[in-house]
């Protein structure tokens, strides 16, 4: 990049901006594309009733196992084909978005909330409180999640509730550990010492000083979790402990389509692709947010 410089005056600025522009374009992709994907998914979830062309749970037996409309043998009615019972894959995907996203949102809020509260408490209070909370975290982290899901499925039956419970009971622990680290660091900072000198109570410090300063980390953690939770829900549904047939969830659709992978690949492929897209988008967005919120020493 640094070519020979003679003693003549200023190089045209365009040359420098040129290099940074390409970099910026690529960076732009990493933001806009995932954002658009997520927005599309959210719209699908919210307006499923209006967008979906067919009923996701009722199928016409006569139209079963039709390939996507752009392939040979497909009907224009069913854009992405139909499944075993003749249900429209596209409609099921659209309704499935609703399930996948609402499950993730709920779980993220619950686990994030509990994890943050316990993490801040442990990090600021230290001593015995910290020790007790962290031991519980250790247990939660080492407990096999799948086993818990199975037990819950046996106890209260598979379904939405089971998925949420299974992933929430253990899911907060990861947050707690990370937030605790952040909280400990902030508790050592000068402005917290100032607050103590000013007579602020522990609660005030935790709420007014520590929490606002961990929000950045929290947001990044949460966005990165979106993908993981959708995958987890998909896995649970695929295994039969989560959302079950006939309700459309991307995970259960993949489960359904497994048996027909060689003759009707579209039943599993499209929901699978959606899962992948959302996970990727969540990750990209999370990275982008983390970079944006990172305090830079120089604006260069």
């Amino acid at each position: 990049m640094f070519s020979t410089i003679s003693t003549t005056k200023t190089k045209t600025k365009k040359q420098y901006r040129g290099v940074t522009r390409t970099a910026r374009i690529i960076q732009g992709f990493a933001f806009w594309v995932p954002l658009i994907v997520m927005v599309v998914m959210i719209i699908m979830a919210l307006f499923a009733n209006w967008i979906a062309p067919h009923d996701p749970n009722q199928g016409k037996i006569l139209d079963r196992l039709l390939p996507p409309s752009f392939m040979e043998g497909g009907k224009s009615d069913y854009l992405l084909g139909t499944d075993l019972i003749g249900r429209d894959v596209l409609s099921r995907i659209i309704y499935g978005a609703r399930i996948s996203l609402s499950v993730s949102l709920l779980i993220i809020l619950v686990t994030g909330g509990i994890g943050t509260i316990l993490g801040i408490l442990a990090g600021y209070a230290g001593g015995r409180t910290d020790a007790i909370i962290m031991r519980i975290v250790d247990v939660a982290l080492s407990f096999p999640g799948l086993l818990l899901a199975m037990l819950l499925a046996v106890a209260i039956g598979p379904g939405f509730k089971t998925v949420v419970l299974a992933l929430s009971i253990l899911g907060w622990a990861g947050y707690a550990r990370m937030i605790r680290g952040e909280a400990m660091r902030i508790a050592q900072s000068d402005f917290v010492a100032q607050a103590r000198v000013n007579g602020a109570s522990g609660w005030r410090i935790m709420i007014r000083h520590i929490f606002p300063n961990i929000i950045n980390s929290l947001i990044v953690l949460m966005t990165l979790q979106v993908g993981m939770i959708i995958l987890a829900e998909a896995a649970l549904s695929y295994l039969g402990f989560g959302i079950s047939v006939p309700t459309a969830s991307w995970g259960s659709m993949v489960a359904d389509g497994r048996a027909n992978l060689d003759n009707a690949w579209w039943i599993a492929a499209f929901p699978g692709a959606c899962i992948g897209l959302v996970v990727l988008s969540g990750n990209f967005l999370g990275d982008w947010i983390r970079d944006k919120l990172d305090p830079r020493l120089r604006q260069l």
Partner: protein
Amino acid sequence: MATKILLEARDIVKHYPVTRGLLQRTVGWVRAVDGVSFSIEYGKTMSLVGESGAGKTTIARQILLLEKLTSGSILFEEKDLYKMTPKEIKAEYRPKVHYVQQNPWSSMNPRMRIKDVVGEPIYVNNKQSKKDVDKDVVKLLEQVGIGAEGINRYPHEFSGGQRQRIAVARALALNPSLLILDEPVSALDVSIRAQIMNLFKDLQKKFNLSYLVIAHNLATVRYMSHSVAILYLGQLVEYGDSETLFARPLHPYTKALISASQLTLPEDSEGKAKQIILTGEMPSPLNPPSGCRFHTRCSEANERCSKDVPEMRKVGKQLVKCHHYE
């Protein structure tokens, strides 16, 4: 005489345990502060001078009750702090003693607006309405030379010098009697330091404030102080009136510090005292040297210095801890 003393530290000691192993056994002690006594008068400035590791910030933290003393006592307005209940401390001590820290970038919550930063002490202690607090904040900011438009801004929108002024405004919020200034200007640009130091002097005159200044820069110390205490490895080695100390330093360490801080020009070195350069470094407070703690680096040390601990003796108007003054 006694009623002029605002704060007195009597033989304060702070040891930190060093733990090792799974069961966290205590294997040693970091003797950060090892028997320090001094007093600060109303309206006067005392400076605590020492290098890193000497224990200055530790002493500040003890006085601010951010940590608990291992032994010794701190008397404020003649009352022993450790005999007061937490309620009494919150009502009678906290409002009167405040803290301006070294680093203007980390001493404020970056997520709080200036009005909340400066208003916090008022809000926490007086339960005033937000509006009234804001009014007080504007007055405080004016006193330190920051305009009222600043109240809704965030700390990062201000320069280092301005933030230090805001920190001072916060420290003045509850009309304190004593401000602890921990290296208040060392993180600032040279040309800004003078502004802030002048501000401190003006405020002292105006409000009869006492300052405990922690510093390692002797020139700053001389400009601001009435009395000076020199700290080495957790103990005071010399203590007394500022001008006397600078005119006639007694302890070898004091002499070395002054020599290191002077503006000696090569051409002037004939005639002025030879530059004193100490060998080695400050030993670890985990394992202080026997006898006089300074003897390992002292050019005037003799056999006795490594065996007997010197006592703090009065020489003229000063107190010195050195065998050569007995």
